[in-house]
């Protein structure tokens, strides 16, 4: 069934079909608006470059480029044609490290954000929907997480769980959700006050139906905009934790490159390329996600766009 047919035979459509059609149109409108946002497109291109680099890393540099035992160059060699970003303290190409590091940094950043969003949205909607005792309890838990200083909690968790990539994802995920939960709860409260939900209740809709069919679709745009912005925070968190020596020792991420350089005396050696390259990458990726996030936010919430 093509789009034109839908338009031709509106009467024959199922309710589900109408919803689908409406969503498709909204998506269309969204893409069109996004394309007209210059900063959003810059961010998207920037991010695209990093994603391509991360995905294509094994094609550009073999995994052996990360193996210290196979590095042949001199340590702390400044940038040259052979080593565009110089070499590290073991003689590995910093470019290879940064390219491979992009994989872990992006992967951890995205996975942790997804985890944090799932937790945050679930808790947010539930606490907004169930007003009484349950909602109150969930709200207190959120408050509790919100007031715990984030970094010490993350460090303690990472230390207890041990240093691995999965653990870093979990640590960032379970420490960064409360902000999202508060946001979603607020939105849920406002949606719940609308008359159609009252109607749904009168028609006998259960909690699950109300939450998934009526509340969730209405908070989704907010969740999406928040996600894009949260990714940058997650990437920064990953970099921070790795820099503090809590990352996965078997995988290279931008944070772990910074840690290594710092430990190996890159500052005393004046090896600016060693610390500069991963640092600039972090800044650019975070910038890209923020540009996209702000553009998305502007489209979904026009009131915010003017600010």
């Amino acid at each position, binding site marked *: 069934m093509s789009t034109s047919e839908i338009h031709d035979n509106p009467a024959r459509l199922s309710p589900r079909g109408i919803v689908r059609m409406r969503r498709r149109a909204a998506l269309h409108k969204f893409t069109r608006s996004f394309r007209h946002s210059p900063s959003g497109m810059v961010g998207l291109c920037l991010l695209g470059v990093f994603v391509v680099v991360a995905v294509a890393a094994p094609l550009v540099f073999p995994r052996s480029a990360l193996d210290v035992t196979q590095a042949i160059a001199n340590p702390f060699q400044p940038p040259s044609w052979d080593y565009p970003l110089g070499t590290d303290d073991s003689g590995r190409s910093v470019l290879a490290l940064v390219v491979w590091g992009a994989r872990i940094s992006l992967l951890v950043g995205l996975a942790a954000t997804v985890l944090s969003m799932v937790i945050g949205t679930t808790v947010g909607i539930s606490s907004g929907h169930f007003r009484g005792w349950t909602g109150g309890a969930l709200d207190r838990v959120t408050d509790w997480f919100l007031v715990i200083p984030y970094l010490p909690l993350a460090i303690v968790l990472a230390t207890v769980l041990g240093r691995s990539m999965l653990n870093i994802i979990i640590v960032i995920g379970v420490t960064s959700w409360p902000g999202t939960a508060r946001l979603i709860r607020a939105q849920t409260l406002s949606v719940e006050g609308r008359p159609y939900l009252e109607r749904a209740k009168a028609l006998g809709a259960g909690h699950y139906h109300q939450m998934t069919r009526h509340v969730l679709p209405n908070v989704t745009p907010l969740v999406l905009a928040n996600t894009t912005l949260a990714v940058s925070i997650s990437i920064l968190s990953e970099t921070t934790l790795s820099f503090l020596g809590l990352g996965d020792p078997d995988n290279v991420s931008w944070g772990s490159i910074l840690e290594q350089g710092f430990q190996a005396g890159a500052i005393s050696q004046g090896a600016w390329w060693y610390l500069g390259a991963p640092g600039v990458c972090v800044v650019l990726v*975070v910038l890209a996600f923020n540009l996209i996030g702000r553009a998305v936010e502007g489209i979904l919430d026009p009131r915010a766009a003017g600010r």
Partner: protein
Amino acid sequence: MSSLSVRTRLLAGCSVAALILGAGLAGAGLSGTASAADDPGASSTRSVFTVGMTQDIDSANPFTGIVAVAYEMFQMEYPTLTEYSASDFSIVPGLAESWSEAADKKSWTYKIRAGLTWSDGQPLTAADAAYSFNRVINGQYERTNYGSYVGNITKAVATDATTLVLSVEKPSPIMEKLLVYIIPEHIWKSIDEKAIKSYKNEGTLASPTVGAGPYVMIERRVGQFIRMQANPNFWRGKPAVDEIVFKIYKNQDALGQALKKGEIDFADSLESNVFKSLQNIPGITTVSSTYSGFNELSFNTGAALDDGTPIGDGNPLLKDKALRQALGWAIDRDALVAKVLGGSGSPASTIVPTMYAALHLDPANPVTYDPTKAKSLLDAAGYAVGSDGIRADAKGNRLSFRLLARSDSSGGASTKAAAFIKGYFAAVGVEVTTKVISSDALTEIIGQGNFDIFEWGWVVEPDPNYQLSTFTCANRSYVDGGSTYANLSDSFYCNPAYDALFEQQGVETDVAKRTAMIKQMQQMLYDDAPYILTYYYDNPEAYRSDRFTGFVPQPAPKGSLLFQYGTWSYENLKPVSEVTATPESPGSTNTASAAPDPGTQPESTPSSSWGLIAGIVILALVIIVVVVVLAQRRNRDLDVDDDRE
């Protein structure tokens, strides 16, 4: 003039510490200043020598601490009967001015110096020495660190105030070099065997630790600093420097910068790149001193208690000697020295370092870097390469091991070495997953036997008895009161033939015969490979030669300046008198912390590239912060309508 400068530096130290530590320490800092002023004779000449290091002590209790820097504190506080000379490790009198073996070879008599006092003024007699020895002989916990000295001693008796008699079962070659610290009985008798396990032994300014060495501890802040104060009752005379501060730095760059800026006077265990950056700076002298330390890969050769009960979750494949031997051929020790140590060291073979030339064994069958040979040895031992490239034994157990490295090693050397090991082992089809943990946690894990391989090292004493004892069956972990405690053995090597030799060398008084046995034991360990030694490392040190002089290297001429066997440098250290023709603002305590820098530091100008990098880093940080703040403001703006946070 010099007096002014050192005093200002103390005040500077106090105010900096106060800034860092907040109000709590500010009080201590002030009282420190006050006492300096009260002390007659030192009112304006209180000199402070500050040592920077990257490792904290694990404990100030001489029965608990095992890291090398902790022993530095112990030997500054507590005397030993005899000492190792600075020049060549020969035995010289310590607390005992003379000693002799009884004609029947059943006892040794030590003449303790007369008229000595502890730092608190109580008399120091042979009774204290007897108490210290008996405490180790009769204690289980106390034996952990000093048991290897007293294994042969049945009892210690003070026959009068200056005579100590140690009864021995058998003749022993180590009776002249018993590094058992003599502790004051009047303090330690109130700390029983249970309490001693958690006893901190950290002094305070009001009640310093009681010792008889050149210095006593007056303050310790975990992870920050340790302050030692000169002991006026030290029998060789009160040292010239009034206070020695050991400051702990989190990383090597900070350590190097601290020395350049003059925050510290001595930097120990420098990372090779930082060490190189300190060369050719006026006022700083760098020394890559020979050292008695080695690093190794230790295998869990079958963790068990001292009675043979298996413990832990080590991979049983590592019990196979052939496997461990083969892995020895997979490691390029020269590359490790070049890349991990930056050349400050040499490839290692046996557990007695080359520095002790008379006792070191150069194996006749050296294991070198030959991955092809490693592969063929593994093939021959029955470990065929599987479809995933990882070898496995006939039953399909893969050669996949956990490698533990230390997060607090100097300059990240341990994690770096682990990355190399991972690469070398992967090249011969052995998989390694690295886990990085703190030294404290590692000690705990080793004691429980919950490891496969770890990377660590030892600092070897001039007499190898202690080092050799770490491979005996009796020194495996033990159970006391239901919990398992680590003993000295960290590979759980247990070989009756080795134990027999250990017993024999322990009673052999003929130097040549004993040397032959020690070499045979080294060969045994080399062939059985509970350890694969990686390198012997130098100790790259640097100090402010414009401020302090009088260091005594051990051994002469190129040995360590600090962290020796003995306290020779601390006792002979003197402030350089004309150091400071530097203009300093007298009087103001508040500006004191900043005052020494501009004057004493014309050499900071060459490091303009450092400034550039710092600038870039700061700029990057500012950008990150701005971006984050913007992002968070966005978030807040979004939900401000419905919900106020």
